[in-house]
């Protein structure tokens, strides 16, 4: 073939390089297509890379792929969970390899076309220069992407995979193997009463918690920001500093301190405030689910408003005073100015961050767990009275080793949150697009 090609090289307008041949060759072995295109350096380095890749990873990939299919066959020797992890890592490596491979095939195809159109193959140096230009954003994002895949995507894949297994205490390596069981966990969740009841009650509290706690922190943050922004207020800097303080204290420390303060019998709140002022025995902050819920929302407001406050303070400073002046000319009341100028401006500008506030609270494990471990206990469900989905998942995972069910519930949580976030982002995004262009 190559000789044949060379003979015809003199006649110009003929098809010397068949793009399809280049493509097929590069599918057979990365780099062959490039060599066919007379890009020897490139071709050879591709071949070397591919062979090195196969030699270096073959054993691992084999074990991984076999592992993820079977999850092991001999108890005590095969550790299903390790095999599952190897399998996922293998799949990720393969995905990387396939991406590069596709790039190689496309490259061969494109080069052949370019050559046919009479373009001179660029010199090696030139090629590198062009490549650098085109690849710059890829090179810049690549390290980040690789890290992301292993810290975000990989655990997610693992969690998703677990949801379809029977991994629990009684199916744990090394004694036993884990097996794929399809949608059984989800079926159980929907049909077995105790799962069903718990899921429904935990889910509804999670929604209430998310909406109320987040809205509270936004409202408090907003009100304070507006007040501090008032022209007449002095010592703005000092006041801001104090108001931002809860953000500066480590969250888990604050929560634990609050937990101690709210102890029914011995905490400072009942002892030093409620009983002297109101009398009685104090309020059952930690033993009555309703009170615990109220306290949780108050604490989350305490913890969360400074972020919103800081954000709004910044935005408020950017609202042009001309708008207000114009409104004053039209005789607008203060409420009207707030309602029609301040509020839309502030909310519009910060919408994505506020959405993230909601989704963060939906999964706000720390406060629920550290304050009262999801308690107090209530009858008829296997979660505590203030457990939100994520803290329930934690208990299933670490207290009862019911990994697969925890994974299934996580998957449901994730889907709910991401669908919500997706639509919200899209909405705010499309607004933005209009505004920016």
């Amino acid at each position, binding site marked *: 073939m190559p000789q044949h090609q060379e003979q015809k090289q003199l006649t110009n307008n003929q098809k010397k390089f068949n793009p399809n041949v280049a493509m097929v060759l590069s599918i057979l072995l990365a780099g062959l297509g490039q060599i066919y295109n007379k890009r020897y350096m490139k071709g050879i380095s591709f071949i070397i890379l591919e062979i090195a890749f196969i030699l270096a990873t073959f054993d691992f*990939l084999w074990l991984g792929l*076999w592992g993820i299919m079977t999850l092991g066959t001999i108890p*005590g020797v095969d550790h299903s969970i390790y095999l599952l992890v190897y399998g996922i890592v293998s799949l990720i490596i393969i995905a990387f390899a396939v991406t590069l491979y596709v790039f190689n095939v496309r490259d061969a195809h494109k080069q052949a076309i370019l050559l046919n159109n009479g373009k001179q193959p660029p010199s090696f140096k030139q090629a590198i220069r062009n490549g650098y230009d085109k690849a710059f954003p890829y090179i810049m994002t690549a390290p980040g992407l690789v890290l992301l895949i292993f810290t975000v995507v990989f655990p997610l894949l693992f969690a998703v995979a677990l949801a379809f297994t029977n991994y629990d205490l*009684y199916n*744990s*390596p090394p*004694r036993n193997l884990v097996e794929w069981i399809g949608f059984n966990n989800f079926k159980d969740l929907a049909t077995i009463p105790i799962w069903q009841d718990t899921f429904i009650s935990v889910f509804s509290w999670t929604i209430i918690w998310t909406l109320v706690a987040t809205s509270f922190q936004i409202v408090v943050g907003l009100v304070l920001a507006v007040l501090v922004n008032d022209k007449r207020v002095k010592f703005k800097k000092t006041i801001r500093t104090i108001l931002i303080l809860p953000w500066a204290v480590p969250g888990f420390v604050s929560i634990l301190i609050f937990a101690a303060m709210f102890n029914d019998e011995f905490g400072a709140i009942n002892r030093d405030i409620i009983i002297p002022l109101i009398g009685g025995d104090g309020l059952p902050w930690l033993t009555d689910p309703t009170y615990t819920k109220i306290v949780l929302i108050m604490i989350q407001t305490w913890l969360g408003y400074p972020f919103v406050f800081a954000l709004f303070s910044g935005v408020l400073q950017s609202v042009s005073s001309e708008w207000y002046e114009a409104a004053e000319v039209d005789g607008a009341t203060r409420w009207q100015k707030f309602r029609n100028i301040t509020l839309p401006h502030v909310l519009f500008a910060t919408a994505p961050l506020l959405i993230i506030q909601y989704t963060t609270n939906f999964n706000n494990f720390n406060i629920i767990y550290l304050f009262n471990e999801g308690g107090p206990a209530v009858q008829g469900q296997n979660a505590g009275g203030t457990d939100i989905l994520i803290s329930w998942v934690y208990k299933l995972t670490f207290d009862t080793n019911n990994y697969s069910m925890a994974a299934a519930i996580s998957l449901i949580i994730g889907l709910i949150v991401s669908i919500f976030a997706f639509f919200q982002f899209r909405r705010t995004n499309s607004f933005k697009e209009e505004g920016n262009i």
Partner: protein
Amino acid sequence: MFKKKTLWGLLLMVGFILLLAACAPEREGAEEATGNDEGSDGTEEAEGTEETDKPEELVVWINDEDIAEDISVELFEKYTEETGIEISYRRVPMPDQVEELALAGPTGDGPDLFFQPQDRLGDVIAQGLAMPIDYSEEEMNGFTDVAIDAFTYDGDVYGTPVAVETYFAFYNKSIVDSAPETIDEVMEMSKEVTDASNDKYGFLVSPEFYYLYSFMNAYDGYVFGEEDGVYDPTDIGLDNEGSIEGLSKYQEFINEGLIPKTLTVDVLDGLFVEGKVGMVFSGPWNMPIYKEALGDDVATAPLPSMNGEIAPSFIGVKSWLVSYYSDHPKWAEDLAKFMTNDENSQTYFDVTGELPPRPEILDAVDDPLYKGYTEQVPNGTPMPNIPQMAQVWDMDIAIELINNGADVEEAVTDTVQNIKDNIDVSGGSSADE
């Protein structure tokens, strides 16, 4: 055209991958195990020849307590002197050890020996994390039967018992002259002494199933039905009449305001140490602490009698276990046995104050502070060691409800039903042992 071919190429690749995945690769240990089906239940016996090779080092996970470190280091040094094997140890909180072992074992970062109470034995066995111990008749006789039973599972003994633990009554002699002998006397005493507004209490027991089981068990409530040493996880007796009667007795203390509703162990210890409580139920781990704070005012007694006899208490046995992942199980076993022989058990007792389950030592204890401890032990019931026990701790929920004023019968019936459901959904009722 282009797309199609790429697709085709990808398909080819997927096919190859599937082919690869279809047949098992070679892996360490696979041959041994396939050649020997018996080996697959986690009780693989190590080959003798290999085992006589002395390891240079053994790794031990001790409980995350200063005192555990003190005693262990002392014994480790002695062992190193005798055998030349170095011991490296790590402090891992006892409740986290099983979980961490499951993670770290396969990577080789696990220990050779770890430390667990028998109520977690079921979890350990279900996951196959421990290896049985080879005892000679004589070695076996060195331990009390209760201790060996506590660590026997399916006929194999899985640990070398270190200490036997139970709770009993501590009382403060400056508040009560002698320990009330029946629960009714406790009630009377409590009514006299308690002044809740000044944090003064006659009698406190932490509202946890662990302690309150005494009330239930005294009136014939039980955790799992038992026959010939085999527990039946489907037969739970925590909601029978006896249990209800016992807990109602307890609830009177709450209703009368004699025990605060949100009492926790920390609070209880704090108050007792400050000399504000007449009597508490607590365990040997508090003996040095109470003693230091209250001096000679502390005394102990067995639990007050309920239903005519000294109330039973849960007996826990803590033990060294040989990790399934140990590379030197025989030596790990050797170390475990070394640390629990008579001489070293005596040292353990001297340092920690916890009673080793060895008759020789039990008989020799003459410290009056141990009166309650040694007298309570024969009256105790061992905590069931099957994994379904994990769900039974949900009884704490019933107790929380009872503390908050719920009807005892309702609380107990519902909770036990939940425990049964939870055992079901966690696969525990079908898992045949």
